[in-house]
């Protein structure tokens, strides 16, 4: 055992045992962040705060929620909303938070795409981030089932039905996932377990991994500039704070993050208190009824783009049914972002607007996702069906074309 001298202070007593000094240095005061960044670099901290808000509000909801088909609806809409003191507040924080967290995730994701922060050593940051996106999607989906309203029920029904499209085992797999022939009590309780335990634990692990994956390649900057972090850190520590290209995570970077966070939280709580209705679909205030489909089913806004990719395919092509084509396109759409670092064949790490061809691709993708989102909520009839098909096809074409576009870009840049 190591020799311990008697400590002169409480701080020293803990420092001897836990290495607080060193820990704070490694995690905070000597964790270096580039200077040349803007408010979009604050999204990570915003997401951490949002996850904490969801966790805390979720813990309070968990005290009164009952995962049973006969009790779930009333435990949410009567007990929590009307009887529990400030129960409404926690529900609104949780519902609005679930929606807003996806808004920030999308901003975070497309900041990464715009600035090329997913390649040249940053692949694992991107992949762990996409893993988090998938986990949050699963968390959102499983949580949406819990109030057991009509939208909860039919979203659960339609999404679990998607697994039926898998060849050979599809039919049995759907029954296995649901624990019944239809979405029933067994389905509710198992998705409750996933929502409050398994997925949150996985998310916590993935967040730690995501942070860790940042340590070696470091955070990207506004110009995509590569420099020696050790050298710049030494400069900073020797007093040349102005000349150094980096700042410490704490207190410099975080203080600016907190400023952005302050504005964000004003916006967030404005929504929670005055505009929570956008996250509370009126159809979900009808209790789940397995024998009555609502006239029009649509997911929450953040799933609309992939939902539209799924249903955009409404006719047979070369003997493959519209349903199968939709499933394939849906699977493609959900997996393709994961391999983005390898689809981008250009070595340039620059903001998109400084890249001769990529900038068109980027803005086309944003436009296409907006169209998909818009039409995902409209009834898929008449011209809507064709716009949906066109946008869905466009999505596939964009990603298939990306390697060729970026290859051509690399050639053009080298030729200069």
């Amino acid at each position: 055992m190591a020799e311990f001298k008697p400590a002169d202070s409480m701080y020293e007593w803990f420092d001897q045992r836990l290495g607080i000094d060193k820990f704070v240095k490694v995690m905070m005061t000597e964790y270096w962040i580039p200077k040349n960044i803007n408010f979009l670099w604050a999204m990570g901290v915003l997401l951490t705060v949002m996850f904490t808000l969801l966790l805390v509000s979720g813990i309070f909801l968990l005290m009164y929620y009952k995962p049973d088909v006969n009790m779930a609806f009333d435990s949410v809409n009567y007990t929590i909303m009307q009887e529990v003191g400030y129960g409404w507040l926690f529900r609104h924080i949780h519902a609005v938070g679930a929606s807003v967290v996806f808004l920030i995730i999308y901003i975070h994701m497309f900041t990464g795409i715009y600035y090329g922060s997913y390649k040249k050593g940053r692949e694992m940051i991107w992949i762990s981030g996409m893993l988090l996106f998938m986990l949050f999607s699963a968390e959102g989906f499983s949580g949406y089932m819990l109030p057991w309203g009509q939208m909860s029920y039919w979203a659960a029904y339609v999404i679990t039905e998607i697994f039926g499209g898998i060849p050979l085992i599809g039919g049995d797999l759907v029954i296995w996932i649901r624990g019944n022939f239809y979405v029933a009590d067994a389905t509710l309780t198992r998705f409750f377990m996933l929502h409050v335990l398994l997925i949150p634990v996985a998310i916590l692990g993935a967040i730690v991994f995501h942070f860790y994956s940042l340590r070696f390649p470091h955070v990207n900057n506004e110009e995509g500039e590569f420099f020696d972090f050790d050298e710049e850190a030494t400069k900073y520590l020797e007093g040349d704070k102005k000349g150094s290209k980096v700042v410490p995570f704490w207190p410099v970077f975080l203080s600016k993050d907190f400023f952005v966070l302050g504005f964000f939280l004003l916006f967030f709580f404005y929504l929670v208190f005055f505009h929570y209705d956008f996250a509370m679909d009126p159809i979900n205030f009808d209790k789940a009824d397995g024998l009555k489909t609502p006239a029009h089913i649509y997911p929450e806004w953040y799933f609309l783009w992939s939902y539209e990719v799924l249903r955009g395919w409404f006719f047979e092509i070369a003997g493959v049914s519209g349903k199968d084509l939709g499933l394939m396109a849906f699977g493609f759409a959900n997996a393709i972002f994961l391999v983005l670092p390898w689809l981008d064949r250009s070595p340039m790490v620059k903001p998109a607007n400084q890249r001769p061809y990529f900038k068109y691709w980027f803005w086309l993708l944003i436009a296409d996702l907006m169209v998909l989102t818009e039409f995902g909520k409209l009834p898929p009839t008449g011209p809507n069906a064709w716009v949906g098909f066109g946008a869905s096809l466009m999505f596939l074409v964009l990603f298939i074309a990306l390697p060729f576009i970026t290859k051509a870009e690399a050639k053009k840049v080298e030729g200069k």
Partner: protein
Amino acid sequence: MKDESRRGFIGKAFGAVAAVGGVASLLAMKKTWDPLPSVMTAGFTTVDVSALEANKLQISVWRGKPIFILKYTEDMKPTDGRSVKVGDHYYSVMIGLCTHLGCIPGYEEDNKKFKCACHGGEYSADGKQTFGPPPRPLDIPPYKINGNTLVLGEEGPEYKAMMAKAGGA
């Protein structure tokens, strides 16, 4: 060297025990998610169809699924391999879930067709898909004809003949 092989053997033996335990626990976890025996064995639904009104859709429930039973009017022609004859009348007996993604289509009496509001799929009165994304006609549940009643969940000779015809076609 003797030592090395001893360690190697212990390592492999440990690995084998761990692998068996791992596979066994995966199996147990899979089984935990299986539908309960009570769920699997539950559910034969008996419907008396003699009193139904023609061209009015009757919806019964079998294993949590809506079952469409539609009595044909005089001018509706029965479809070979899809229409069920009970007594003197023909009926459509189908699982009322759109074969696209499982929404429940509504029946339009005037046009004598089913229309799914979710993704715009349409079916004729005998359940054949006529428009939109549905990949196949509405499914026919296993049934047995017992006088004027249908027993859903049991495979009667008429059902088997119908399936044989569908499979052979």
